[in-house]
Every structure is written in structure tokens, then in C-alpha cells.
């Protein structure tokens, strides 16, 4: 069976200064998402994760364009769709949960209007059945007393509640896939846990697939089934979540895991030397080589191809970390 979403060799670039400066934000990204699965996209700021998400729903900013690749949703290539066709796909088949709930809700419309909109357009609900649907959605995201709350406006709600409303809007059109772009960065830790558990419950109830974009490996450990690690516009490693934590193959993944403080353990942290690269002036060869401890001469001249050492996932590295680490885990 074909996967729900298959992205192959996607390239999305931002062109500025009259074409003289090209930022290769997404440069050959391939992954697929099965129905009901949670796929994590991890990376630091500026690695191209958000651009990947925007490209999938064809909402890149005016300077950005998709210059190559395919985005197949249930077999249909979204890159070839017109914007009118995309409007019938967004909200109905793919929904997004954006980063900042303060900015993504319209302050001038009531909660009812905003949650009802996708159900009105995409599910053609009207009148009492629409109202019923909104109540169900609000109850599903555990908004207390929904019939009263839906008359409220966004400013009357707390940050955690607003983010849950955004979750209800994403569900309203009945999508098969939800793209969540760092949905919890502005929330407190206890509220974050509430929200992540809520997303998992919703996923269990509706069987929706999730693409979870984050820089937080803890969220990945909690939420995801498979993970792609992005660096400088490419997925440098893709694995099952257990594989990633037990047998990281790419030196960047390993370094990321070693740089995070673990609760209750006071071992020295590994700091990755150098800075994330400038996407408009990438180094030759592997983009990570200036920061990599394992770099060899080949890394400086030739870009590593994607290969699968033993079936599970793949890695872009000339010298991936071998199974030596397995004993340690």
C-alpha cells in the first residue's frame, strides 16, 4: 500500500536580491508518512524544517519556491496542484498546527466561528449539526463547558487553552494528516505534557497521521515512531525512534544527543564546535564537516549520498558510527 504522504527529493529555495542570493532551505528531502503514524522532523533553527512543512501545504512565502521534487498525498502530486485545488486540500486532508497560538487565532472572531469554519467549508455542515460538531471538537480537546466557552474570544483564554483550540481547528475538517510545527514551544512544562498527551489521545481516537516538527529530542522520544534529523536543508539521518536513541549513526545526531543535560546525571556535556551553517553559503562536501570530529578528507570535497547500512532507515555520511555503540546502549 502506498504511504499516506511521500515526499521525494523535495527542493525549496528562497531567492533574494534579484536572483543573486539563493538560500537552499530544503535541498533534497525525502521521507514518507504512513497512515496513523507520527513522524518527527528534528533540527536546529534554520535547518529547513519549517520550510519543509510550508512547502508540503504549498504556503511558502513569496520569495520561496519549490524548485524540484514531488509531494504525493495518497498518490496525488501536490506540487502540480493549482492554489484553488490546494484550498480544497488544506484543512480537509492536511491540517497544520502552527507554532504560536497567540498569532494563529484571529482576535476578531469568536472561538465558535474559528472552529466551525473548516467544518463549514470542508464538511458542509450547517446549523445544528455544525454546532454539535464544534461542541464535540471542543470537548475532545478538553475545553471545560464548551457551550459557554465557544462564545469567547481568543484574548479571554489562557495560552494552553488557545493551543488546544488550534488543535480543535486542525481536527475540524477531518484531515488524514496534521503537521504540527513546534506546537508546544510557548507552553509551560506541565501544560506541555497535557497537550502532548491530548494529541496522542486524539491520534488514537481518529487515526490521523502526525508530522511533528521540533528541536526538542525529549518530545521526539515521547511522541514519535520514526524520526528524520535535518541539518542544512537535508535529512542526514532517518531511523525508528529507538534506533535513533540507541544507535545514532550520523555524528551530528550523536552530538545532539550528547549535548543535552539528562535529569539527575551530572556528566559533562558535549558542545558541538562551530556554528550552524549559513544556508546561502554552504561548505563544500558534507555541510556538517567543519563541525564534525570524525571528518576525513573525502567529507571536505564530496557530498555523502544517502545509504542504508542495514535496512532500517538511512544516513548521509561517509563514515557513519558503526555498531560499536550498540553495546553501550
Amino acid at each position, binding site marked *: 500500500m502506498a504511504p499516506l504522504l511521500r515526499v521525494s527529493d523535495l527542493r525549496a529555495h528562497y531567492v533574494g536580491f534579484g536572483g543573486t542570493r539563493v538560500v537552499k532551505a530544503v535541498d533534497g528531502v525525502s521521507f514518507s508518512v504512513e497512515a496513523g503514524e507520527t513522524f518527527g522532523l528534528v533540527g*536546529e*533553527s534554520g535547518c529547513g524544517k519549517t520550510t519543509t512543512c510550508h512547502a508540503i501545504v504549498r504556503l511558502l512565502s513569496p520569495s520561496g519556491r519549490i524548485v524540484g521534487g514531488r509531494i504525493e498525498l495518497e498518490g496525488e502530486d501536490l506540487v502540480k496542484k493549482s492554489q484553488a485545488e490546494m484550498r480544497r486540500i488544506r484543512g480537509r486532508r492536511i491540517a497544520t498546527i502552527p507554532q504560536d497560538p497567540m498569532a494563529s487565532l484571529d482576535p476578531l472572531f469568536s472561538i465558535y466561528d474559528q472552529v466551525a469554519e473548516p467544518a463549514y467549508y470542508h464538511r458542509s455542515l450547517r446549523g445544528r449539526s455544525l454546532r454539535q460538531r464544534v461542541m464535540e471538537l471542543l470537548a475532545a480537546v478538553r475545553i471545560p463547558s464548551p457551550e459557554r466557552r465557544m462564545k469567547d474570544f481568543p484574548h479571554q483564554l*489562557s495560552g*494552553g*487553552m488557545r493551543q488546544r483550540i488550534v488543535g480543535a481547528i486542525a481536527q475540524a475538517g477531518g484531515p488524514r494528516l496534521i503537521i504540527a510545527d513546534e506546537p508546544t514551544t510557548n507552553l*509551560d*512544562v*506541565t*501544560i*506541555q*505534557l*497535557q497537550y502532548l*498527551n491530548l494529541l496522542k489521545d486524539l491520534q488514537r481516537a481518529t487515526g490521523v497521521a502526525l508530522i511533528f516538527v521540533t*528541536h*526538542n*529530542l*525529549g*518530545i521526539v*522520544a*515521547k511522541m514519535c515512531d520514526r524520526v528524520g534529523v535535518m541539518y542544512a536543508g537535508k535529512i542526514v539521518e532517518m531511523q525508528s*525512534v*529507538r534506533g535513533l*536513541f540507541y544507535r545514532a549513526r550520523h555524528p551530528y545526531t550523536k*552530538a*545532539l544527543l550528547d*549535548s*543535552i*543535560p*539528562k*535529569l*539527575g546525571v*551530572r556528566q*559533562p*556535556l*558535549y*558542545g*558541538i564546535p562551530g*556554528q*550552524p551553517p549559513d544556508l546561502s553559503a554552504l561548505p563544500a562536501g558534507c555541510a556538517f564537516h567543519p563541525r564534525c570530529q570524525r571528518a576525513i578528507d573525502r567529507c571536505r570535497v564530496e557530498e555523502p549520498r544517502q545509504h542504508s547500512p542495514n535496512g532500517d532507515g538511512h544516513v548521509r555520511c561517509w563514515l557513519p558510527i558503526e555498531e560499536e555503540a550498540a553495546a553501550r546502549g
Partner: protein
Amino acid sequence: MDSSLLAVRDLRKHFPVGGSLFGKARGVVKAVDGVSFTIGSGETLGLVGESGCGKTTTSKLVLAAEEPTAGTIEFEGRNIADLSRADLQDYRAKVQVVFQDPYSSLSPRMRVGDIIAEPIKAHEALSAAEVRGRVSELLELVGLRPDAARLFPHEFSGGQRQRLAIARALSTRTRLVVLDEPVSALDVSIRAHIITLLEELQQRLGVSYLFIAHDLAAVAHVSQRTAVMYLGKLVEVGDSLELCAGPLHPYTKALFAASLPSHPDESREEIVLSGEVPSALSPPRGCSFHPRCPFAMPRCSEQEPRLLEASPGRRVACHLYSAS
């Protein structure tokens, strides 16, 4: 502990709210409500809590940027409320701050050398050459090249800017640095550098830190002792590693349960708190945590628990652990 550098006793800061310009205030927010802690020389105290719990107000009080409603702050054995203007100047030289966002805490119109020199010039009478020498030393201390002094902040990355902010904070024979979420705004791969740098500087200079953050793992990594704050009060204080191994207060337990696993197979007690932090304007009666607490007893809604010693060096404010 009498050797403590900073001793805060029963500190309170209440803000009147709701009044119009000339009208009477209709309520008060008890942002900080009876907080006591000490920081020893060369020690790091971590202060954890969610937004709105009073962490930032506490740091402002310690920095003498706000005046407390009640309570005392003693620094090197002297109450800072009694200091003369000149002595308060000296206090401000010894207690410095590093803010969360290095993009807004460094003036974009000043050269790096001037940014770091500014506190030195304000507090010490040194010749221009001596100031330049000190700036070079400080830049090297935080791992930057001395010729960075000629540049402007926009020429640096986030991590380097945070190093500049640290250099500025250490420029005046500083004894205590308030670190207000110093790594939250940085990229994951850069955070470890800044944390390691802070630890190295502490060992070399013997400076103390008040480390404020909401990331428990980072706080526990950096600080010897950790204090957990909820709605203006400390609910638990103790050795960081012991606190991680066995949190006592239900809120601390919930915070640890909510901090994300470092591993997909890590199993931990799940305590999902219901509801959200109540408004500081009308905190619940009794223990302010009781409406969200899974272990609440009838007594919790009537009587406020005091911060009592549960084991040596470990204090907790919860009726579950008070004998009577």
C-alpha cells in the same frame, strides 16, 4: 549557613492592580510572598518554576531593581535596604545579571568593547588603557578573540552574544550573577557550550550564580541546590541530585514527570496535572497548589503549609510531610 554570600529572608513583593490613575487599587498580586533562601560563595542555586510564579520578580529584587514590600536581602552580612548610596553602587557592581535574549540585551549601536567597558567605567576609576586591557582579558575569559572589541553585536551569533553578555556581567569583580534563563533562547547545539563555560568560570573565579530556568534538567545539571517556586512561594528546596532522585512535593513530582524523557524507553511516574496555574490575583485558600494536587486532603484547602525541614538540607512546604 552563616558563610552565605546572599541571604534572602521572608521576601515579599506585592503589586497593587486594578486601580485607575487616581483611584484606589482593587486588589494586589502577591508576586513574591515570603521567599527565603541562601546562596553560598561559589555556589549555584537553581530556581525553577512555570511562567508567572515570581521567578523574575525575585531576580529583580535581588538585583535591587525593585524594592521589596517586606523582608530582607543580606549580602555579605549587610542588609541592602540599609546601604548608603555609595554602598548600593558597590552592591550593584558585585551583583550582575545575564538575560535570556542576547539579541535584545546588547545595544546594537555600541561596539562590543564599549558594551563591556560600560560597567567598568561606571564603577571603577581606571585609565582608558587599563579599561581596554580589562576588556581584552574578559573577552579571552569567555572564549572570544580580544579584537572582537571593535565589532558590533550584530556581527556575532546567538551563542557568541551570550558570551558577550557574560563577559559584561563579570566585568566588575562580580561576586554573584543572576542568570535569567541564559540558554533558553539558544540553539540546542550551542546550549552545552554556554553551560560548560558558566561552570568553568565558576571554578576559576569562585563566583556564585542564581540560575533561573524552567528546564529542570539544565537547572539540575548546573546547580548544587535547587529551589522550586509556585505562585510566589517556594515549595521545595534541596540538593539538586537528591531532588531529582526523590522529589517530595507533589508539584515538584509533577514537574519532573512533565519534563520530557531523554530516552524512548525511559519509564516514569506519570502525574498529569489537571487545570492550569490559578490567577495570582486570587490565589486559592490554604495551600495554593491544592486545586491541582492529586494528593490534596481536606486540611490543604484550609491551612497553608509552611516550608519545613523534611530531612537535613531538604525543606518542603506540604502537609503530607508535616508531622502534626
